[in-house]
């Protein structure tokens, strides 16, 4: 049997990979992917906790997260399209109309 903390480790590592992508990549779409990675990292730990605690709450939450992730992806991608229409780029650091 795999120890629980292995899953938590995996979750933590995956979360940080996603976070690294999110805070450094300039490509909007990759940033969105990074967020998905972070969600999935959380999912791993939730499913693992849920399994080890013999309680389905975590898995229900995973189910919800997947549903909401879909919703977020839809909105995020719609925004990407709207932005691309306005500025012909998806390089995120070029959106600095407002600052200070």
């Amino acid at each position: 049997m795999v120890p629980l903390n292995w899953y938590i480790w995996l979750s933590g590592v995956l979360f940080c990979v996603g976070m690294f992508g999110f805070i450094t990549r300039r490509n909007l779409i990759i940033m969105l992917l990074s967020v998905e990675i972070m969600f999935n990292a959380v999912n791993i730990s939730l499913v693992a906790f849920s399994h080890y605690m013999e309680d389905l709450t975590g898995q229900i939450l995973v189910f919800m997260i997947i549903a909401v992730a879909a919703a977020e992806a839809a909105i995020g991608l719609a925004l990407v399209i709207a932005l691309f229409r306005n500025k012909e780029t998806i390089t995120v650091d070029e959106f600095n109309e407002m600052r200070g």
Partner: protein
Amino acid sequence: MTLKHVLIPALPLAAFIINILFGKAILRTKAHWIALIGVAGSFLCSLSALSGVLSGHIVNEDLFTWITSGSFKVSVGFLIDPLTAVMLIVVNTVSLLVHIYSIGYMHGDKGYYRFFAFLSLFTFSMLMLVMGNNFLQMYFGWEAVGLCSYFLIGFWYYKKSAADAAKKAFIVNRFGDFGFGLGVILIFLTFGSLHYSDVFKNPAAFAGQTIMICGHSFNLITVIALLLFCGAVGKSAQLPLHVWLPDAMEGPTPVSALIHAATMVTAGVFMVARTNSIFVLSPTAMAVVAVTGGVTAIFAATIALVQKDIKRIIAYSTVSQLGYMFVACGVGAFSAGIFHLYTHAFFKALLFLGAGSVIHAMEGEQDINMMGGLKKHMPVTYLTMLLASLSISGVPGLSGFFSKDEILWMAYAHGGGIGKFVYLLGAITALLTAFYSFRLIYVTFHGGFRGGHDKEHHLHESPQSMTLPLIALALGAVAAGYVGIPHILGGHDSFAHFLAPVVGEAEAHGSLSQEWFVMISSIVIAITGILAAYYFYIKNTKIPEGIAKNFSPIYKILFNKYYVDEIYDVLIVKPAYWFSGAVINKITDAIVIEGVVNGLPTIVEWFSRRLRKIQTGIVLHYSMFMAAGMFILLILILSKLYTGRF
């Protein structure tokens, strides 16, 4: 608490709001109606409140609590007891009459609606001051009446002297108010509450406490009382902070009558009477009050002897009479002080309004030497002012007699050095008062007109809206005193009994014969003063000039008001200017002004501009900040676990 009590201050407030909002655009020359209705309503309500108090119905309730935090409570509440009732009557009566008077006096002024708006606001503030049931409300009322006074003195702000006078009044009052504010804070710290009912419940319990100031220990109650008295000195123009009041005469005359004679300046007396249970615990403070009052009384009276400006004479007379009131308070006869406050309101307001009537007729001329013989041109003004002068001089049968005699007797009967001393001062002042009052009457109204022919043609009696209030006030000046006829004259001293529950009854250590002696001597003094004035200014008009010439140093000192203004100028104003000019401007300009006043914002702004750079507008940087913040939080919270420290 019933509606009528709330309406007393609410009506003038409503009048103020309506006038300030719609006065300029809609009401214009009709502005007085709103103010008049407000004050008249308030007057009727206060009459009804008085009858309530007379039938033993005392109100002490919080109307509404603004904020509370532990024992600190800011609330608006009304305490309507005999003292408040008297003040309500005084304030509302004079205010109502002054409102009516102003219709004629201010007619055609371009700030007509503004004038009435501020009059209403002042009435409201004054009513809040006297009706309050806690020190904070009194303090706010105190500041509010000061502010109104400031606006009204400087009503003709385009006149430099008016603007300067307003500024002076404001600044001088700051000194007093600072002390008052400290006193209120000290009261809160000592008693843990600012409500009268809590503070006055048992102040004696704190009598023995001391407070350390600069390494010396002082009696706590004395310190509180003296701080409070500081405020009274400023507001009631006692030595050495009296300098603002004569200058305040730059304001319109109705304002002088209402604010600077009858009501606001007496707030100091009211406050001392209100806090009598604190003052009586401190003989030191009482002595200070009595001596300050006595010295101010004689000091101001001597100045009034030689002034030429009709309003200034009356202004110094006011200062002097206020001194009387403090003498009464200082010898523990608070009810006598309030009694004098009450009668004084009538005859002093009358004097001012009469003076206003004269000035109105003289088209702005205020020098009494340019007047004379006005008796036949303006009989109503003459007669009413004569009655007021008789009253202030203490001629038997008029209201001033009863109240002034009461004070003198109380001072005399107080015994001890202080009592004798202030009695002596008071008696001399009474002589001077009678003299200068009748000097005013004789020079202004008798003899021949000295202002030239052109002016003489224009002389006329003032319109009815101005004479009616004069007549009404004259009735007061004659009859107001009959509520307090002393026992010795077969009366019941009802006024003192009425106030006794609030201010207690003064003990008089004296026999009947002594009382008779004091009374008769004061009558004699009054008559002597009047006759002397008659002799000097009617019979033998050369004498004053001769005296002025022969005793020119004294005359000069008096005429220049003991050079107090000049002394202040040299001691305080000039050094302050010099200090600000030489020290602040030159030496610390670069450091203090640049550094603190401009610099602090500049530094902050500089900092702000630098800090803005962090906000690059790039999401990645923002997210990096978020991640870094999260990282730091994680370190913060987990470092305890791993290192044992937080």
